[in-house]
């Protein structure tokens, strides 16, 4: 049951006392992270459900509201995240082959790309704030081509506005929760960078990098869905 072959020091100390061998430990870690990602699917899923429901109820308003977002910025952010997934995958690769220097570099690149994403999001949020498109008491929506509601159209505008607002709370909730996950992910990356720098990882033991990678890719996948669903609804109009 005990390891009889000579393994590097890191591997021996990395084996937790309640596991029989590194393979079991690794398998447990992977399954554990996937179980956690399943919970994330269901968590975001609730918001996606609300989105599906309200978009199918108010297709016109959602399309109009979506045009208030900058699809180009959204597209850029999508590319940024895909790049960050590549750098993350490469970081895992270099951990697997034991190249500490490149592991650290690619983790830093991932962080950089993540922060770029958040920076663009901040720009977008600010734009929404400036246009009074943040849902709540100060929400104002101006239909293209008319001035803000006059008396006769007031009621219709009111209802319309609230349906537009429906899109925007979903936008903020979904991208906000996503951004929160990005921030946590960046935090995790920074911890990994510290650990890598300290030489904690080796080809025999690098599961924190792999498992964090799984998390990072998942957050990317959420965005892959958010981009068309939020930014591209009315794009053809």
């Amino acid at each position, binding site marked *: 049951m005990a390891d009889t072959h000579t393994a590097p020091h890191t591997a021996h100390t990395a084996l937790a006392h*309640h596991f029989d061998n590194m393979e079991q430990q690794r398998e447990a870690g992977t*399954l*554990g992270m996937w179980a956690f990602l399943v919970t994330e699917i269901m968590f975001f*899923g609730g918001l996606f459900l609300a989105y599906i429901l309200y978009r199918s109820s108010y297709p016109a308003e959602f399309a109009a509201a979506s045009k208030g977002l900058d699809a180009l910025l959204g597209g850029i952010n999508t590319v940024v995240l895909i790049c960050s997934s590549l750098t993350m995958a490469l970081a895992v690769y270099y951990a697997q082959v034991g190249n500490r220097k490149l592991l650290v570099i690619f983790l830093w690149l991932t962080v950089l790309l993540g922060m770029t994403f958040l920076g663009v999001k901040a720009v977008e949020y600010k734009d929404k704030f400036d246009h009074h498109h943040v849902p709540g008491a100060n929400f104002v929506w101006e239909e293209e081509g008319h001035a803000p509601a006059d008396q006769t159209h007031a009621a219709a505008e009111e209802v319309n506005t609230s349906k537009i607002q429906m899109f925007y709370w979903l936008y903020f909730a979904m991208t906000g929760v996503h951004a929160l996950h990005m921030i946590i992910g960046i935090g995790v990356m920074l911890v990994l960078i510290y650990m890598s720098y300290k030489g904690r990882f080796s080809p025999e033991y690098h599961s924190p990098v792999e498992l964090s990678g799984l998390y990072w890719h998942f957050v990317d996948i959420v965005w892959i869905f958010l981009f068309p669903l939020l930014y591209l609804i009315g794009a053809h109009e």
Partner: protein
Amino acid sequence: METTEKILEPRADYINNTYGIKSWLLTKDHKRIALLYLGSITVFFFLGGAFAVLIRLELLTPPGDLMQAETYNRMFTMHGIMMVFFFLIPAIPAVLGNFLIPIMIGAKDLAFPRLNLLSWYIYMVGGLFTFIAIVAGGVDTGWTFYTPYSSNYSTSNVIWTGLGIFITGFSSILTGLNFIVTVHTMRAPGLTWFRLPLFVWSHYATSLIMILGTPVIAVTVLMLALERTMKVGIFDPALGGDPVLFQHLFWFYSHPAVYIMVLPAMGVISELVANMTRKNIFGYKFVAFASLAIAVFGFLVWGHHLFTSSQSVYAGMVFSFLSYAVAIPSAVKVFNWTATLYRGSISYQTPLLYAFGFIGLFTIGGMTGLFLAALGLDVHVHDTYFVVAHFHYIMVGGTIMGYLGGLHYWWPKISGRMYPEGWAKFGALVIFIGFNLTFFPQFLAGYLGMPRRYHAYPEEFQVLNVMSTAGASILGVGYLIPMIYLAWSMRYGPKATRNPWGAFGLEWMTASPPPTENFEETPTVTWEAYEFRPVEETVVVGATGGPGDEPDVSGRV
């Protein structure tokens, strides 16, 4: 091979091998974490019980004379929240599951011991937030938080409570995650899935629900908080939202949640019935698969809570049909336990008495669930005491009996002491009588039309309510009895042997209480589940018990 020297040598077990509060609060030992949970859930149980006392006191008389309606709303809300989220959902998994699962599969601990400890701390933080909400005046929305009242009108501490529930949900998720990974990856050599104790199967199924369902209540509470603070219209019809969406999201978790509450109890019952009748559970595989079926089907029926909500009647029909379907695996279990009892070598001790209580009361609760699953009948009894009685039969008559039965059965293993059997039987009887007197009249009251969540009611219901309150006071006393003698036994109870019940299972092959690593040496399993043998064929193989052990008469030693 035992010499007198061994008798003088103190045996190190998980309780006494290290001392000091830090060694408990920073422990990674699943057994100690189970005890941490035991302490906390007991506190929350009595807190939830205190609210129940106030409810039943108010309902002694028809007019609302003990408290205002608004106050009463807070009473039943806090009772529900405490009991559901802080007692029923964690109790068996976090106490018995945490303690036993690694031992039952021959492992040294769960897959993620630190996450296990974290889950307890998260639970405590969630409990703290909810406690703060109580101190600040509580919540008055009902534990179901229906919109638009909770999102637009209630002035009570919805967000604090929601935060507490959100946080505690993560505790549940981490526990479930730990169990699933542990059972998949850490079973001892030779322990195939169909050799696992049914307790493990039940907890595995429960863990599936924890993982798949809990995140949805989390995001629902988040949406509720958003709506309350920003009034954006998520659930507000005036702004284009749908309040019933909340109900869909809420019950998508909360219905499977009731299976989180009952499946572990069923796992306990399987252990009690098999071991105290010295027979393999009749139809072991059917019972194992039934656990999974309950977990899966449990996710398909939530709409039966929305029959009268303006949900489409066609969706209602689908949910009604599926609700009948989900009863089938539960019924299979009840039949199989009963069949196991037939011609078994029955030992009428307290754990089995609780199991009998469970089987009878769960059956009543389950069958009344079928009443509720019928669309037409539900229109009549929805939101009446019929529903209240139904779920209390399952949660109290079912889960709590399972919990107490399991606590008694494994008490010698957990504490190393035996509880006093006479007092235990008495306590079980008091609880059984108190329980039925409390809740059976509620079926009648509800069917006759008494609505739930009302603090005042027409005169005609008073007799039934007085019976119910009388029962509740007996039940309350009944719960105190085990509290007292179990606590007493920790110090003064006779020391338990390794296998006082002559039971089957890896947990009975290690010392009572077990050493920190659970086993001196990882066992290799070569036997089937519950493979009881006649006494003559018993083979004693390297007993790891301590001094004073009687020779065991179990199938395996």
